[in-house]
């Protein structure tokens, strides 16, 4: 894995909301790297901090401590104007709910070109319109649609507009914050295919935030599981799904619904009890348990996890 180029590096990231007595650590000491050209999945329950990490990368949220490094350079705190402009263009986001994330009073043409207008990243108006047309075609919409309003589109089409809006900036790195959660199964399949195709054509890198694990398994290369602001496990997606180590990951994966009513009825769902760790005396660290497979554990647990991996080898 080490031969891959690192695109994004998150180092000991901490994000706190509120002050003094009301201070709340939303993200607590999170570190991971995203390689160029991969789809990196981030899964976790509601309120676990998935979106906060995505938003911090977009620089919507401030970072309390730690660093987010893009192509070897910090993107937070004091940065030069030209670098600020460059990363504004290079990092784009696709939002969760296409019904809420488009300006209802603006035409598609404006919605898609808003980023271009803000960064003045076009030569003349004809050039801008050409880019909007290309972006629309890229996501499988017709260029004529640019004169319409968002309410004239279906959910899947609106999400495509959201994707076109990100693509028009010619980004390298896209943060997709639950891009398919609000769509029905068939449209979800269309959008997933579209995201995968675009990734291959344009060699994009995604941070794919989701809570639907079947989707994550289908699309991502590596996955991190986040629980209450800490990453508890990170591995290649297939490895993580076939061999989850951390009890929270196991509980999460055991809860994935299968499209099979018989199996569902007989399923045993593991329940995660955070009290099983004794972290007061022996705080955990985020360590590699096997190559490319990281887990949050203290020494005692790490020994246990490693033993369970050994067992698996002899099976």
């Amino acid at each position, binding site marked *: 894995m080490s031969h891959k180029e690192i695109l994004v590096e998150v180092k000991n990231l901490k994000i706190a909301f509120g002050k003094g007595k009301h201070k709340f650590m939303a993200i607590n000491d999170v570190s991971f790297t995203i390689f160029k050209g991969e789809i990196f999945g981030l899964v976790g329950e509601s309120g676990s901090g998935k979106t906060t990490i995505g938003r911090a990368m977009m620089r919507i949220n401030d970072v309390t401590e730690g660093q987010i490094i893009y192509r070897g350079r910090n993107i937070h705190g004091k940065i030069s104007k030209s670098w600020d402009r460059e990363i504004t263009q290079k990092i784009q986001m696709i939002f969760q709910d296409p019904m809420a994330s488009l300006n209802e009073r603006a035409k598609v043409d404006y919605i898609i070109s808003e980023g271009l207008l803000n960064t003045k990243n076009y030569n003349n108006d004809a050039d801008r319109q050409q880019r909007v047309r290309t972006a629309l075609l890229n996501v499988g919409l017709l260029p004529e649609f640019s004169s319409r309003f968002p309410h004239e589109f279906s959910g899947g089409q609106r999400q495509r507009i959201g994707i076109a809006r990100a693509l028009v900036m010619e980004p390298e790195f896209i943060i997709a914050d639950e891009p398919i959660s609000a769509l029905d199964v068939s449209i979800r399949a269309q959008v997933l295919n579209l995201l995968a195709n675009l990734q291959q054509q344009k060699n994009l890198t995604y941070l794919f935030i989701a809570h639907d694990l079947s989707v994550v398994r*289908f699309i991502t290369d590596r996955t991190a599981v986040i629980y209450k602001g800490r990453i508890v496990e990170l591995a290649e997606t297939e490895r993580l799904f076939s061999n989850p180590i951390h009890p929270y990951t196991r509980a999460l994966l055991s809860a994935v619904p299968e499209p099979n009513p018989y199996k569902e009825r*007989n399923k045993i769902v593991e329940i995660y009890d955070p009290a099983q760790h004794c972290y007061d005396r022996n705080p955990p660290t985020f360590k590699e348990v096997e190559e490319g497979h990281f887990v949050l554990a203290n020494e005692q647990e790490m020994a246990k996890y490693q033993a369970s991996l050994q067992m698996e080898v002899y099976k």
Partner: protein
Amino acid sequence: MYAGDIIEIGKTHEIFFNAKHPYTWALISSLPQLGSKGEQLYSIKGTPPNLFQDIKGDAFAPRNPYALKIDFVERPPFFQVSDTHYARTWLLDPLAPKVQPPEALQSFFEEGRRCAHES
């Protein structure tokens, strides 16, 4: 349901593992669990019909790769599959050609039936 109309109704296992309507087939095929990584996931082509306009024949016909000529002319009635299972598709008419569901779906059906046997 499709376009304001129930197109297939039955017990859960009948819908999951013995679906008869092409729209039900398409829905199940779109599940990421049935796709394989790196390949295209099945998706339904086209868009849902505009309900302000009159729908002629089967509402799903324009998006249905298994559509018969009659699907564009006349709305199919409910055909009985079992005592509890009905589907609105001309494919169930005795005169219709025998059409098999997509291959990926057939293995999904088989696995489901196997589970039914065991339980």
